[in-house]
């Protein structure tokens, strides 16, 4: 058995392997540590933060659906200052790349946070979650309007020396238009997908299951949509992609790599199998062995590169 080079370079972000955990599903990196050795992960994306602390939405916040999960956590988080004071010191000790995830309701929200998060903070990158409504612009969503998305990414990019990852929402007519917009805005990396907007109804109570009515759908159910978007975007822009949406097994992860992702992120899959990141990584390595591939990075886009 020759050893496989698992290192991947996503523009300015080098990861020891392509298996990351997804924002909002892995806390601030400590919760799953007893079950899944942090030093084996390519990276951890931290829970999304906002400038001010947030209590998030009332419960129920979760609803199980066929092969999927609806959540309406509502960005509960300690806020930027508390994050920096209480969490960052521990986060920077984590033996893997830690990626901050920032959310906001105005461009200033994002730039404020970006200014506070620089290379010297010990983070590996900033992921910009643009799926919140822009309250300053009448609730129009950053994540669904290309011009706003470009603007917010450019603004963040101007404020931080960290690699900037633009995280796209799948709830759009053209994911390619969104990807091209954030690429123009200077994003170093694109991550996709965030959750699909969904809901479910308690038929006995005759009202929505989630206290917040709607929530974000994640898990294996959404994988075909996510793979399609990675496929489309990877052929439309030059910047690397972190693929996610329903990854549970190594086969799922390889699907994303072949579709055009340079790394993958595991979210809901952790809840089902807390050791999923480990078995995904091992499975990718064995897949490379079997297919005579020496560098995991060679898998990226093979499914369409072979076709053209």
């Amino acid at each position, binding site marked *: 058995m020759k050893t496989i080079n698992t290192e991947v370079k996503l523009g300015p972000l080098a990861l020891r392997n392509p298996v990351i955990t997804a924002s909002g599903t892995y806390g601030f990196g400590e*919760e799953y540590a007893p079950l899944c050795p942090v030093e084996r992960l390519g990276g951890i994306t931290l829970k999304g933060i906002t400038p001010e602390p947030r209590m*998030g939405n009332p419960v*129920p916040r979760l609803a199980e659906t066929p092969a999927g*999960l609806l*959540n309406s956590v509502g960005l*509960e988080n300690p806020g930027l200052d508390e994050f920096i004071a209480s969490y960052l010191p521990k986060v920077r000790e984590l033996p893997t790349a830690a990626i901050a995830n920032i959310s906001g309701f105005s461009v200033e929200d994002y730039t404020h946070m970006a200014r506070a998060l620089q290379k010297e903070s010990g983070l590996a990158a900033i992921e910009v979650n643009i799926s919140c409504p822009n309250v300053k612009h009448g609730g129009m969503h950053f994540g669904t309007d290309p011009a706003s998305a470009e603007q917010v990414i450019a603004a963040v990019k101007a404020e931080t020396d960290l690699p900037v990852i633009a995280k796209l929402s799948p709830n759009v007519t053209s994911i390619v238009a969104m990807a091209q917009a954030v690429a123009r805005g200077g994003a170093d990396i694109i991550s996709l997908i965030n959750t699909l907007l969904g809901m479910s109804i308690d038929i006995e109570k005759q009202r929505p299951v989630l206290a917040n009515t709607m929530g974000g759908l994640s898990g294996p159910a959404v994988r075909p949509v996510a793979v399609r978007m990675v496929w489309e975007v990877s052929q439309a822009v030059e910047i690397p992609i972190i693929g996610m949406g329903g990854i549970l097994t190594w086969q799922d992860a390889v699907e994303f790599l072949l579709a055009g992702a340079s790394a993958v992120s595991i979210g809901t899959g952790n809840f*089902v199998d807390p050791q999923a990141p480990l078995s995904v990584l091992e499975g990718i390595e064995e897949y490379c062995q079997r297919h005579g591939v020496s560098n995991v990075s060679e898998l990226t886009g093979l499914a369409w590169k072979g076709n053209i």
Partner: protein
Amino acid sequence: MRLEDAKIVEHEIMGDPQLGMMRLVFKTEIAKEAHPGQFVQLKVSSGLDPLLRRPISIAGVDTDKNEITLLYRLKGKGTKVLAQAKPGDELNLLGPLGQGFTIPQSGTLYLVAGGIGAFPLLPLAQKALEQGVKVCLFWGGENQRFLESAGMHLWEDLGITIEVSTMDGSMGIQGTVLDLLRNHELTESGQVAVCGPMMMMASVNEFFKETDFEVEASLEERMGCGVGACLGCVCTLQDEQGKLRRGKVCKDGPVFKAKEVVWNATV
């Protein structure tokens, strides 16, 4: 905290099959670490249907045999699938999870249970008895059939004082567990542990408000991760100044100081 494929040792219906009460015993190293009030996250099938794990309290621990007992009631798809599992089958367990009850060292331990809320109180009773503490159970249920199917015999085996109430008076007094509490003078000092529906726990908290009793309550909420990573399962807590904060039922709980819980949270 362990993640383990654990073998089923026993799996049986308790009492009246129509009530869907099940007793499930696993051989697992989790027995070594379990503390009363903690729970496990169980993967009921190896496939994707259902997708999520199910949280079930640890209702019995045998450290010699390395066994834990779960008691559960059939509710929806997950428990229905679980009920198919047979002795010899292996299911994936994550646990023990969460913060359990304080083990009393002296005085009397009053247990207040509503319906199947009695399940997580069982190992607490056991442990308290081992510490030489006196244990008294107040248990409210639908009717006699319910209480007997929900493990009354397990409580009787402990040889403790048991007071029950039923809605139809078929066993014990007719009324709620609150009526039971009101009927008794709790002169002895000690500790209270309560588990049951939210409204019932809120009333119990209210009942003990002006007393010296420390009340601990075990909450329930829909769970994703079970380890504090997803913020799916929060409750609302309040400090003495009335400042609100979130608690994670899976990690900070499921057992909380009852007086800190905001029972009627709308945010």
